[in-house]
């Protein structure tokens, strides 16, 4: 029964994914002006070159044929070629992805490390000054524009304290062979501990910026769901059995309070995997978000089209995963 429901859920994601792909495709076609001329900008090219570019992009074929070519390319993992960078889009995205994944993992880690203890304590001591401080702190965190918070972090850690670097993934003077694309892994593989330390330092500010903001969202969720669970009968029963208070909180209550927290974390994960355009721009972090922003400004719409689609698909995928985990954690929830 649950399996068929799950299958239904997966199948229903397909039309959304297809719709997303078509929308991303139209984005490039319906832009005002000739996409090829826009992409070339002020570069002087002959009519012949323009024509050959156009046929290279299949822009000389009917719209439906173009859509067919685009979709069948997608299935083969072919996302097109960037005119501006003169490289396959799949390669550009592949190059940027590890940086974004690294940042995402670090962010979620920072968020959980802050939000779980803070949220739990806040719920246990609901109404106390500690709880009120946490609540107001969380609201400040949520209301704060991430790009501005990033600049504040730079002001504090780089300008005042001068302890952390502000841009990129590693010092410009250091060269580390790219094996996995994950800077922390590659530096270790190269046996270069000094480079590893530098890479770690570069990760701190962007991960803190995103992580603190995420922690603000997560702490509120943890607090609310803990409060709800702590009022349930089975928690009273557990207390009545004479279990120690923290045992009740951590073993009995937390497990059930985790479900909403898991949802928020899962969705956040999916969102961040698409790259955070704002924070990656602030810290010159060479991930997907920065690739998209740069491509928009360079009018490299083939890249934008692919990235938009990737974003949307990751989001749909993350939703799917979260829904699936839901049923695994609590069999009583049906999709």
């Amino acid at each position, binding site marked *: 029964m649950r399996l068929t429901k799950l299958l239904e859920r997966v199948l229903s994601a397909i*039309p*959304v994914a297809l*719709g*997303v792909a078509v*929308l991303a495709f139209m*984005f490039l076609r*319906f*832009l*005002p002006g000739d996409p090829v001329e826009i992409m070339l900008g002020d570069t002087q090219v002959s009519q012949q070159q323009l024509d050959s570019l156009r046929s290279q992009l299949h822009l000389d074929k009917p719209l439906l044929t173009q859509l067919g070519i685009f979709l069948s390319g997608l299935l083969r993992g072919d996302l097109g070629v960037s005119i501006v960078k003169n490289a396959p889009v799949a390669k550009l995205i592949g190059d940027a992805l590890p940086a974004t994944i690294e940042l995402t993992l670090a962010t979620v880690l920072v968020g959980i490390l802050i939000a779980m203890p803070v949220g739990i304590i806040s719920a246990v001591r609901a109404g106390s000054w500690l709880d009120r401080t946490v609540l107001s702190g969380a*609201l*400040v965190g*949520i*209301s*704060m*524009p*991430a*790009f*501005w918070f990033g*600049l*504040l972090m*730079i*002001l504090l850690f*780089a*300008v005042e304290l001068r302890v952390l670097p502000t841009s990129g993934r590693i010092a410009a003077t250091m060269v580390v062979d790219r094996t996995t694309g994950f800077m922390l892994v590659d530096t270790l593989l190269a046996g270069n501990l000094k480079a590893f330390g530098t890479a770690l330092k570069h990760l701190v500010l962007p991960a803190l910026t995103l992580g603190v*903001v995420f922690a603000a*969202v997560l702490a*509120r969720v943890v607090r609310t769901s803990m409060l709800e669970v702590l009022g349930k009968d089975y928690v009273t029963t557990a207390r009545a059995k004479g279990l120690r208070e923290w045992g009740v909180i951590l073993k009995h209550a937390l497990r059930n309070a985790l479900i909403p927290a898991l949802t928020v974390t899962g969705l956040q994960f999916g*969102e961040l995997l*698409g790259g955070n*355009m*704002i924070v990656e*721009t*602030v810290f010159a972090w060479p991930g997907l978000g920065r690739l*998209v*922003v740069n491509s*928009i*400004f360079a009018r490299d719409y083939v890249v*934008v089209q692919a*990235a*938009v689609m990737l*974003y*949307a*698909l990751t*989001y*749909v995928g993350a939703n799917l995963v979260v829904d699936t985990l839901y049923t695994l954690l609590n069999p009583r929830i049906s999709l």
Partner: protein
Amino acid sequence: MSRAARVFATPLGRISAAIVATYVLTAALAPVLAPYGPEAGDLAQRLAPPSAQHWFGTDSLGRDILTRTLYGARVSLLVGVLTVAITAAFGTVIGAVGGFYRGAFDAVVGRVTELLLAFPYLIFAIGMMAFLGPGFANLVAALSLKGWVEFYRLARGETLDQAQREYVEASRAIGQRRPRTLFREVLPNVLPAISVLSTLRIGYFMVLEASLSFLGVGIPPNIPAWGSMISEGRGVLFIAWWVSTIPGIALLILVLAINLLGESLQEAYAPRTKRRGFARPSVSKVR
């Protein structure tokens, strides 16, 4: 005590309302209050630190930060309020009609919203702005094209809930026309939740506008806006902290006050202890 009065019953509600009111007033009176013109730059006074002459210092063109921050409030408030007015009106009507009548219309709109939700707001807005070109009206349009979805979902859910209640059945039993039941009986019961969401979304749209302006695809550079001011300050962060910091603080305090107001409204309409099934819109992050 009326619901509106209950918002002001708490000190937090009163303080946040006072802050928002102050912002609205100073924004409206910016030309009178501002010590300088928003574009008046004195190159001899480039990047001057805060002083008696320039309370919040000057930017890299020697323009007064206090003046530009006052003027920047106009953009933020206008974008926030206009976008919410458009999206709340559209989304609520579509959602209420969809939830009340169901059927093919509801199903089609449901699919469209699923698609829109799949796109992160920021990239959707950046894409739309690349498509439409920079400008105030285009910005509001780009934000509105996706922004109605949250109102639609809330209004639809609340309407579905209300439609099962006895009073709807009663109005049908006495032969009241369906549209009248929807707009006269059901909709007023949906509006409290919508008003909470509207308040919270004003702050959300402000941060979104600032983010877009920060990236250079929002408000055109000739109009002072907090997002672009913060962006300008990025380049001189190491020598002039005030250029980015001041407009950021202005934005943070306003958004915080609006979010607090939204939460006070929430409490006033739906105290935690009662009312089953009241959807609780919550503060959300710009993504």
